[in-house]
């Protein structure tokens, strides 16, 4: 649009601005060329802008989906890292596990922000958001699973009874060999 205007302003004798959607011919010093009906242009014009908007929306939607799918790569990498870390408890494996837990959680906290740029009333962000959330939850699950394989989750009975004090006995008995 800007370009068109620039061209018009730079010494050209005439130019037809197809996108000009003013309906009054009186505003111009040059009459419309024959066969040109402004009405049809009018209609055409709106179609163009819609197209443009559609393209943008498409682009936004596409981007949103891309963003939503981004954790997947992350997930794969995390999986690889975890595989590398092994299943024994040491600093490296604990670090990886906690980052694997932390990343999805922080991502989930910022779901709104991540999709902010793609906000559009024409773009349906629910799908990408759901995917994003699902993938992050998958990452979280992976982290939790790792935590479990490391044996740090209280999923066994032993984790709940390991500090259970002995039951009290009702009866008491003492004695022994006579002094």
């Amino acid at each position: 649009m800007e370009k068109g205007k620039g061209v018009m302003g730079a010494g050209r004798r005439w130019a037809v601005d197809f996108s000009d959607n003013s309906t009054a011919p009186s505003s111009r010093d040059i009459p419309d060329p024959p066969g040109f009906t402004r009405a049809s242009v009018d209609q055409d014009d709106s179609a163009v802008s819609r197209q443009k908007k559609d393209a943008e929306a498409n682009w936004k939607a596409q981007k949103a989906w891309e963003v939503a799918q981004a954790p997947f790569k992350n997930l794969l990498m995390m999986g690889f890292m975890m595989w590398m870390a092994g299943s024994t408890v040491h600093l490296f494996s604990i670090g990886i596990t906690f980052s694997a837990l932390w990343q999805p959680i922080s991502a989930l906290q910022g779901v709104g922000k991540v999709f902010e740029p793609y906000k559009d009333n024409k773009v349906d962000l629910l799908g990408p958001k759901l995917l994003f959330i699902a993938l992050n939850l998958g990452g979280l699950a992976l982290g939790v699973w790792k935590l479990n394989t490391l044996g740090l989750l209280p999923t066994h009975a032993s984790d709940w009874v390991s500090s259970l004090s002995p039951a009290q006995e009702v009866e008491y008995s003492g004695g022994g060999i006579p002094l």
Partner: protein
Amino acid sequence: MAIRSFFLFILFFSSSLSPVFSLYEDQVGLMDWHQQYIGKVKQAVFSSQRAGRKRVVVSTEENVIASLDLRHGEIFWRHLLGADDVIDGIDIGLGKYVITLSSGGSILRSWNLPDGQMVWESSLQGPKHSKSFLLVPTNLKFDKDNVLVVFSNGRLHAISCIDGEVLWKKDFEAESFEVQQVILPPGSDLIHVVGFAALSQFEMYQINAKNGELLKHESASFSSGFSGQVSLVSTETVVALDSTGSILLTISFQDGKISSQQTPISNLVEDSLGPAVIIPSSVSGIFAIKTDAVTIFIRVIGKGNLEVVEKTTHEIAVSDALSISEDQQAFALIQHASSEIHLTVKLAHDWDGNLLKESVKMDRQRGLVHKVFINNYIRTDRSYGFRVLIVMEDHSLLLLQQGEIVWSREDGLASIIDVTTSELPVERDGVSVAKVEHNLFEWLKGHMLKLKGTLMLASPEDMAAIQSMRLKSSEKSKMTRDHNGFRKLLIVLTRAGKLFALHTGDGRIVWSYLLRSLHKSEACQSPIGLNLYQWQVPHHHAMDENPSVLVVSRCGPSSDTSGVLSFVDTYTGKELSSLSLDHAVVQVIPLPYTDSTEQRLHLLIDADKHAHLYPKTSGALSIFKREFSNIYWYSVEDQNGIIKGHALKCKCTGEVADEFCFDTRDLWSVVFPSESEKTIATVTRKLNEVVHTQAKVVADQDVMYKYISRNLLFVATVAPKGSGEIGSVTPEESWLVAYLIDTVTGRILHRVTHHGSQGPVHAVFSENWVVYHYFNLRAHRYEMSVIEIYDQSRADNKDVWKLVLGKHNLTSPISLFSRPEVITKSQSYFFTHSLKAIAVTSTAKGITSKQLLLGTIGDQVLALDKRFLDPRRTVNPTQLEKEEGIIPLTESLPIIPQSYVTHALRVEGLRGIITVPAKLESTTLVFAHGVDLFFTQLAPSRTYDSLTEDFSYALLLITIVALVAAIFVTWRLSERKELQEKWR
């Protein structure tokens, strides 16, 4: 919870990497102390060596022979003979050999006086048991060889002093002959053996000392008979008492002819006295008789004329005679007078004149003088000076010289009966309890030295100074409680009836108290202390009260004599009160309840199986009434092989009716067949043991529930044939049966037989396991077995959700009358040492892993991880089991030299090991006692909850300072850079 298990896992892991508990050389003495004692002195012989350090050789009731420095009372050398090797006599031969006669006169040994090396040992056999005498004549020679004369086991021996060879021997086989004295008249070659035969016959044998030939045998009969000992008043005269104890018989056998004279005691003393006994003494011309109240000294004049020289009602002790010149003998007399003792030294022939008369202030807590030994020295002005060694009622040994106590030894601590502990007072503001540092200069110097040490600039002398500073740190010997609970009082009861409070920091005696209730009295003839119990431990309530202990004692050796209770304040060492009971004390059962002043309830069972409740207060009674139906007791009659369970029934009926007395009824009994089993050991859990958890997490996260019960009794029985010494039976006729018995219901939970095994059994019971030590006759080795007992009825509590929501009944109170389903796991291992004692570490919360403390036959204490005695050990443990810390199964238990708790020291005559939890969970205090005392701190899983002694605080400080400096520097740099950036 998961985190905790994770940390515990780390803990196990780290401890599995380094299972060795050990000590660096410079840490010796930091937390441990060791004290050497010898026991109550029976006989003392002064070394008459002119040159060298003055010393005295003593034999004691703990079967110790020791050479002590006469100047300071330190031990030069010491030997502990076996428990059944009782010393009968000691003497010094040739001025350089210590001769000892022991084991009822059957072993004669010679030791080198300067260093205590054994020179020779002779075994003396004889036809029959008899009194034994050891005589070392100075002038009797036999082929240039000095001769020892020993009468033992009915046989007279002459033995070479050089090599212990028997030169000649002479039997006294007459059936009823009982030897009373063996006399060596100085300057002759004769030996007189006098004794009684057939109760009323006096016999005298004259023997040639050169060859043992019998020269003469005379006898005379006395219709009135004899009682007790005879006293030698000269080389040819003895004095004896007749069987009624009222007539004195003066018997002389000059030139081989027996003549006698009878003198009724009533002739000598006007007022009638009870039956008398002769006090053995060797002072010539004088003897003493003692009745209940009076001690009488009698002089023998000429041939059998008696004359009373002194009569005293004071407690008196007489020494043996000491010849100070050719014809002069001196002896010492000690008399008591309130807070003083009077020492007099007299010449034997001159009663009225005193060579020496001194008064010495004496601590009342030492009681009466029991024995006196006299020694002389020559003063610079060539006159005689005397020193006496006295043995007191509390078994302490003191040297008196010139009216002063030169040194004293607390040898009562060599015979500890029972031990308990007490907390120290809480530190309060304004109460300065310990002198911290003497002055600023000292303080600065100390810190400079320490700094030098940490910067490795210290010279060897400085290092020594630092070490001594560490050892004498005032911090550990303060008289107040500390945060870690390392400082406590060890309250010990000794056989002498004295209570000592020892500080755990440095082992010093804080106070001592000779129990008044253990003094002999009209009502209580021969009181003996039995046990110590914690009576009052102020905890939550009654914080202002001092803690106190209960001493239970009895008026005689038999179990039906009446008991005495004493309550002693552990801060001050004063007796709060004492109770003479009108009933016997057969058992004392501390109950798990305390009254409003934190006094623990105790149930005393008397000989008629009545239960008496103490303290006798209404508060205690109401608490007791509430738990009345839940209190049971059991008795082990090891003679009959019966274990009986009893319950309380109702208030006493009959003559002992009293609100606090209860009748009991028999509930159950376990009878072991007497022809095949004999009870030799019973063990229960310690009452104050704390168990952290009832669950045991095994590999693959599985749970096993421990069967934890306070009312379990471990009983070991052996075949009656096999109850003797090891090796006295063949493996086929010997077996050992171990039982686990519930003492409330009498249910036998487990029974296992070890064929071909034999006692003695040493066992320890803790949590849900018992470890016992015995001899395996087939393998010719000692064995240790472990039994762990698990509760199968709880095993299906595995639903995580139920556990998360707390919908389980694992912690609800259980009754033992509900039938338990238990499974046991056990395993046996060979072990090299034979044991004297066994104990287990105990910690405040019971989280820390346990170590067994084994008192070995070498009188050391060995720490052995409980993990070595885990019945789940297998030859090839899986990866998971390895991670859990299971050690691959080996045939025998390892003995790691670094895990000797006593490191290089020995606790001679080790009898018991006591463990006390400190407040710090990782640490336990260990006290081992025998003739020696040893105390140390142990951390079975290392000190995971505190920084170790060798932690480098300097490094930490330097790191922090360096970091702070770095932060400042980089901050300034970054500021400057930012500024420059802005100006650009």
